[in-house]
């Protein structure tokens, strides 16, 4: 059965029929975000805001802890939603992941952060991202690039769903003639 990413009318997302390898990639997202204390990752996720060394030192001291907490918060939201997938990972029809609309922002941001973490760790650049040959390659770096693309697909769907106007119920299907008859004695 093919995996399905289904936008929900309430603005959330449901993913169905996830094979175990895809489930495992998604279940690994919190661990990817836990890598944000590596120097190459820190310099990408928490870059210096100017060329003023003194200002940058103050930024590091005052602002970076807050930025760090924001990513940790998104990570926690994702980890909670992934509990359902963990439970359904080995189901015969595949795993299921439900992302409610109120978690959408955390997922969009967390997916972006996870892609940047992978990019920083593996030194992924624009040429890597444009090279389709990577899908035929093996190795840790090639797998990381494929994962960046995969997570980008999911992030793109979530952005599209989040950008849609609120779902409206089409009540023109009902008219007075559809009103149930009064019960007869």
């Amino acid at each position, binding site marked *: 059965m093919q995996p399905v990413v289904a936008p929900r009318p309430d603005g959330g997302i449901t993913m169905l029929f996830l094979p175990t390898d895809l489930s495992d990639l998604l279940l690994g997202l919190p661990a990817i975000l836990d890598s944000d204390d590596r120097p190459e990752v820190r310099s*990408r*996720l*928490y*870059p*210096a*805001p*100017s*060329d*003023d060394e*003194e*200002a940058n*030192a*103050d*930024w590091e*001291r*005052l*602002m970076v802890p*807050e*930025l760090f907490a*924001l*990513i940790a918060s998104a990570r926690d939201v994702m980890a909670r939603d992934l509990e359902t997938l963990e439970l359904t990972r080995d189901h015969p029809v595949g795993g299921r992941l439900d992302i409610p609309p109120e978690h959408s922002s955390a997922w*969009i*941001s967390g997916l*972006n*952060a996870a*892609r*940047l973490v992978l*990019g920083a760790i593996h030194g*992924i*650049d*624009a040429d*890597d*991202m444009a090279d389709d040959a990577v899908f035929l390659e093996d190795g840790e770096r090639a797998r990381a690039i494929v994962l*960046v693309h995969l997570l*980008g697909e999911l*992030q*793109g769907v979530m*952005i*599209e769903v*989040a*950008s849609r106007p609120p779902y409206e119920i089409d009540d023109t299907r009902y008219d007075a003639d559809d009103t149930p008859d009064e019960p007869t004695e």
Partner: protein
Amino acid sequence: MSPFASHAAAAEPGVIEEVETRTSLARPWNVIVHDDPITLMTYVTMTLQKVFGYSQDKAHGMMMDVHSKGRAIVWTGAREQAELYVFKLHSAQLSATLEQVED
């Protein structure tokens, strides 16, 4: 003097300090977003709309500037507000800096 330190610590009163403050207030600051090969273009557009309240068209145009030129000025104004915007952009993991407009 560091802009962030200026909010937290009182400077020694003095003529030189006052002159520096006047000078820094005289010129506005640019908020600049830098290109990133990994971040989705739609994410950049969405973030610019959220942070600055720009229309979809304006945010998309700025995103295309970032993509094609490597960087783009997305806002210009007072330093404190510029710092706040850079913080919001960093919160969304966009690569953003601020620099003072040249004379």
